[in-house]
């Protein structure tokens, strides 16, 4: 397990970035880290681009991740990983869902959707894990569990023990939602 890190969760309002970062933060606290997390509420939640930031280490001052300093960008939507790419360290990694949410201007042909952006990132030498987390979550029985698949991948990357995350999922989710989210984290660990 590394001794400090900056994780940026990004997506479209309503996709569950806050739940994923809450669970990660809880795990990091159990491991004795100082943790700061920053989220945005209100207007931006309504289908706009959103980010949640988690910073951990021995002592964390600012809750904000600076440009070029994120170790991981975890993106719930393909084009959002591109929007926030400026925050990634050169040696950082993008974990992105291939899921697309196409904004209005793309639908009416005034803007293009960056279909091949993850491929371009790889070509430019960035480290990228791409998968359709939403499709996989639907296969598991609940589209909303996509965030736990992505969290599973991140947790494996960070070297977090799966048992810790499983324990927290049991505390965090209602019994009816525990099984699908446990499966989702499992799927994430297997994919990393």
């Amino acid at each position: 397990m590394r001794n400090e890190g900056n994780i940026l969760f990004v997506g479209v309002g309503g996709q569950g970035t806050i739940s994923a970062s809450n669970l990660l933060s809880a795990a990091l606290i159990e491991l004795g880290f100082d943790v700061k997390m920053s989220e945005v509420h209100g207007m931006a939640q309504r289908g706009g681009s959103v980010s949640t930031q988690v910073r951990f280490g021995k002592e964390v001052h600012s809750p904000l991740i600076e440009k070029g300093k994120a170790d991981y960008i975890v993106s719930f939507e393909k084009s959002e990983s591109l929007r926030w790419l400026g925050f990634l360290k050169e040696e950082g990694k993008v974990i992105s869902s291939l899921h697309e949410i196409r904004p209005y201007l793309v639908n009416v042909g005034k803007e293009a959707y960056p279909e091949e952006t993850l491929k371009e990132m790889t070509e430019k030498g960035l480290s990228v894990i791409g998968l359709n987390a939403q499709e996989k979550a639907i296969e598991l029985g609940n589209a909303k569990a996509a965030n736990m698949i992505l969290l599973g991948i991140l947790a494996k990357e960070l070297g977090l023990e799966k048992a810790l995350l499983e324990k927290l999922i049991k505390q965090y989710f209602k019994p009816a939602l525990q099984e699908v989210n446990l499966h989702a984290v499992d799927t994430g660990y297997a994919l990393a």
Partner: protein
Amino acid sequence: MKSLMTGNEALARGAYEAGVHFASAYPGTPSTEILENLAKYKEVYSEWAPNEKVGMEAASGASIIGARALTTMKHVGLNVAADPFFTMAYIGVNGGFVIVNADDPGMHSSQNEQDNRFYAPHAKVPMMEPSDSEECRIFMKKAYEISEEFDTPVMIRTTTRVNHSKSLVNLEDRIEVPVKEYKKDKLKNVMTPGHAQRRHPIVEERLVSLTAYNEHSTLNKVELHDKKRGIITSGISYTYAKEVFGEEASYLKLGMTFPLPKALIESFAKEVEELIIIEENEPYLEKEIKAMGIPCRGRDVLPICGELNPEIIREAFLGIAPKKMIPMDSVAPTRPPVLCAGCPHRGFFNALKTDRDIIASGDIGCYTLGAMDPINVTDTVICMGASISAGTGMQKVLELQGDEKKKIFSFIGDSTFFHSGITGLVNSIYNKIPLVTVIMDNRTTGMTGHQENPGTGKTLMGEDAGDINIPMLVRSLGIKDENIKIINPYYQDKAKEVIKAAKACKEPFVIITQEPCALLKEVQILRRNSYVEIDQEKCRKCKTCVRTGCPAIYMKDGSVFIDREMCNGCTLCYQVCPFQAIDKKGDLINA
């Protein structure tokens, strides 16, 4: 025991631990979750008030009668509540009285970027600025001590990044404080001119005592490291400064930023070679410190507009620019906020969006998004409640000019109507202004994340409440029965018919759209199996459905699709499709 909390959770925790008895507030980002969290502690009575002024006054009354009282609001909420705020500074307190004011630098969810630190000297109320969640909890408890010791309301001023960032908090037990005895004291509690004239000098003396207190207060911290550069800062800016300079600078971190500890600032300034002030938005501290005759700088290189962050500070003082992004050929599409899939507001906006004779006076809430493409209906948005009152001014001028073609429609949500829309409607009735008021009743306070309001039938603490009947209220104010129309906003034909009648009416007219927010849990359960699908064989790709702006509808490889996960069967696209190419699926609730 340590717990990871947002600033808002920690402020609630602090109020609980301080033995607060009574809390009243109106929701507003970024302050909303303070009362939502306080309501979880059953020892404290917490309520949603219809607006910030009522919240401030309810809490003022609770304090005067002897209880420890709290009110919270976003920055623009203090404008609404400024009247009682300024006078409570004269009256002072019986039980401790704390006001939390949450500013929103960067305007994540606000209509302006006002820096409310200036309210403290203006109203002569002491102000504290916590930097993280633990300080939110500690400062809240300290604020009640100061409030009661100095007989003054105390303002805790936070910013979005304090309210919505999480950090570790120590938990302590609640101190049970008895409600103080109430004694009639007209000279103190009745602000007639004569009494207020006697109170004002007391307020000025109080500021002298508070300054003396602040000189030695534990709320301020001096950290001496490298003395070449001394930094005076407060609130979230302290964490940014530490991030950038670490131990390569010395700090005077001010926890209480009004009235300022002049001697402390002077002695810190003498310790260091260069004094810089790091603060977000306005140069509040810098102006005050310069006025003390102490040379300092900061604003010459820091911006007034927008949120501050460590990168800006590093570039401003050290000349180190943020890292450049790896250049990419692909570009992320713009993604402004939009009304959700199945949002009832979209239905009504869609029914009138092609009518160029309607000028739309908008308001604060999700329906502000009626101004965005492709809805593009709303012409103006000022502040809470202004839709109707600004609409009366617009409609009157049209009338004075003899313009009978154009018509003003005011759009306001249920919670905003209760907040400050009612008085505007009174104006339209009293002055016989033939304005069309559209009350978009979605049975919740949507934008701030589903708070109860006087129309929902539930209180903040989850009890049943008397739900105020909007049609009856409107009728009792004097809108004629035939000029009140209640509709389901999804049904386009009916909506268009009502819009036509409203446009033609020469008297004040009210349309009430009744349909709950599509994100409410009970609505989501109800519509779980309700959706529509495109019949690809019939679809001529005319994009009429796309132009409703519903985020569930998208184009890929030249074809139109509807996202099954997002769609909840509102049927608006089904109704507008000219080729009957959309099929209703599942147990459809609408149409």
